């Protein structure tokens, strides 16, 4: 059986990127995830270089990324691209532009122009500083967690630091009653929602970087509970990676995931999911 790395090499589009399936045209999120998964694999060095080239060529003038080059609007995919590029030190100009875009992306309440002023805008609403899926919208858990992960350690401005601290307050505020996180508000339209594994895993990965003591036992419990409810590979792999990052190994989980591997070496014939499994097996993003 081919290895997962073999599968990812085979699934690479001739233009250099990866899609969400092996036959799809490239988009930014799976390409960035695959680059993170293969970056230390000597056999995948050529694929890695071509993938980086695709990613760099897909960057917009404003420094961000959309779904691909044809999408004129930069959005949440920028955090993924930045994380992937930040391990690749040969294009600092591209990294700086994307750091700037991600730091100053506007929200529903604060425009990009206002964020680009020297002073941090004064707003009472902490949620105005977190990260949206697309510019000019309200913030949500997933893009916020990914932006924190991407910017922590490489963005040095006061605004970046302020927005990361706002994200921390946001994670505290929107933790569900049972611990863990859903995709946004824990009580939308007065409805109590269940925590979900994927957003919880992303927040845990972000908190592990910026404020590890903030993580509560209930968060891990909520993560495990949804992993039991939802057997999908993405849930299992992202959850496993979060658990391993926090020092909680789980051999049963690893063997369950391994059993779901397909004959072509992949999980669900999906480069994005397969990349997550590789990262989870390795223990770091």
């Amino acid at each position, binding site marked *: 059986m081919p290895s997962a790395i073999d599968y990812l090499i085979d699934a690479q589009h001739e233009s250099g990127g990866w*899609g*969400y*399936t092996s036959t*799809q*045209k490239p*988009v930014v*999120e799976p390409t960035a995830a695959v680059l993170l998964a293969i970056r230390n694999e000597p056999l995948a060095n050529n694929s890695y270089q071509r993938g980086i080239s695709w990613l760099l060529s897909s960057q917009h003038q404003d420094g961000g990324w*959309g*779904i691909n080059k*044809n*999408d004129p609007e930069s*959005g*949440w995919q920028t955090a993924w691209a930045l994380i992937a590029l930040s391990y690749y030190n040969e294009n600092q100009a591209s990294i700086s532009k994307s750091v700037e875009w991600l730091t100053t992306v506007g929200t*529903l309440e604060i425009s990009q122009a206002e964020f680009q002023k020297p002073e941090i805008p004064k707003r009472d609403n902490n949620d105005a500083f977190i990260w*949206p*899926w*697309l510019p*000019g*919208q*309200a913030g*949500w858990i*997933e*893009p916020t967690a990914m932006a924190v992960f991407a910017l922590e350690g490489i963005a040095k401005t006061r605004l970046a630091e302020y927005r990361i601290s706002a994200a921390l307050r946001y994670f505290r505020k929107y933790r569900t009653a049972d611990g863990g996180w*859903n*995709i946004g508000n824990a009580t939308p*339209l*007065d*409805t109590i*929602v*269940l925590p*979900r594994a*994927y957003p919880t895993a992303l927040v845990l990965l972000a908190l592990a970087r910026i404020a590890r003591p903030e993580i509560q036992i209930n968060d891990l419990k909520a993560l495990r509970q949804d992993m039991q*409810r*939802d*057997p*999908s*590979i*993405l*849930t299992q792999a992202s959850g496993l990676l979060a658990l391993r990052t926090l020092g909680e190994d789980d051999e049963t989980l690893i063997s369950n995931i391994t059993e779901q591997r397909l004959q072509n070496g992949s999980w*669900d014939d999906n480069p*994005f*999911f397969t990349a997550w499994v590789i990262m989870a097996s390795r223990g770091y993003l």
Partner: protein
Amino acid sequence: MTVPKVSRRAFIRLALLGGIGAGIAYIQHQTAGVGLLNFIRWSFRGQLQWLKPPAIVGLGKCPSYDEDLVSNLRELWDLSEMPDLRGKSILVKPNLLDEVDNNIATTHPRIVAAVLDLLAELGVSKIVVGEGSAFRRDTYSVVKSCGLSQTLDSHGIPFIDLNYDELIPVKVRDGWIRNSDYLWLPRHVMEADTIVSVPKLKAHHWAGVTLSIKNLLGVIPSSRYGWPKNIIHINGINATILGLYQSLPPVISIIDGIIGMEGNGPLYGKPVQHGLLAVGRDPLAVDIICTQLMGFSIETIPHLSGAALAGIGQAKKIVTRGISPDQLQKHYEAPPIL
């Protein structure tokens, strides 16, 4: 001090001017989101529906998912004068927004199986089942948890997670989507000749009801717009529903109302034993009839009243066939919004 006397003629003029002013203010208020010209154009188009043939909605009574669902649907299909789908490429769109306990929020897999069997009988050339979960990163996990994966395997039908499909920019009509002339939509959706919307009959805490038109929101790709179909939070759910609906290939409706959901839908409401199946080629007409059968007024459901006003489907003349609506009438607990 004497009060100046107003003649009868002057009084009538003043009242008339006041009435015109109030009318303009009302229309301005009602059309603030879309503009007066659009409002006039849509109203005209809506009134034109009076000149068109009536929409036919087939209604059936089916107490359980253990019944012969294919026969039930075939009978309703024939009664409802549905389009000829021979040789057509079909996207079946069930409601699989998320997995909650007992799977009461999702279209029942036996209904999907019956739809697939019926479509095969009708001689369609290609079928795919597609959905993009609003709340899950992997829609296929909902497919598995609700039991639909076995159905798809046994029928040899592929499932497309529409959140991750290849995307095509599609021009939006009527300006429903603010700040953009385009919606990015999945290739499998836009390449279908016909979309069969197969929703679960449910109350909805934001849209009022979720039936065959609202069910279409699931095709919006979250890989572009974010979860949960985040364009609805910036553009408004009703405008997005209508803008999307007008951008798609023709849609027909098959409603799973055998067990509906009342109260705090679409996820956390209570099940209702309704025993309803509804079929029609005009989703607006089907949704209007089903909304009435839930005991709600159309005027309280903005995306349906908006579609009726704008003539996006037939709302003026609807004929039901099959079981009489009286025998299917229920009174659902309203969602918090209504």
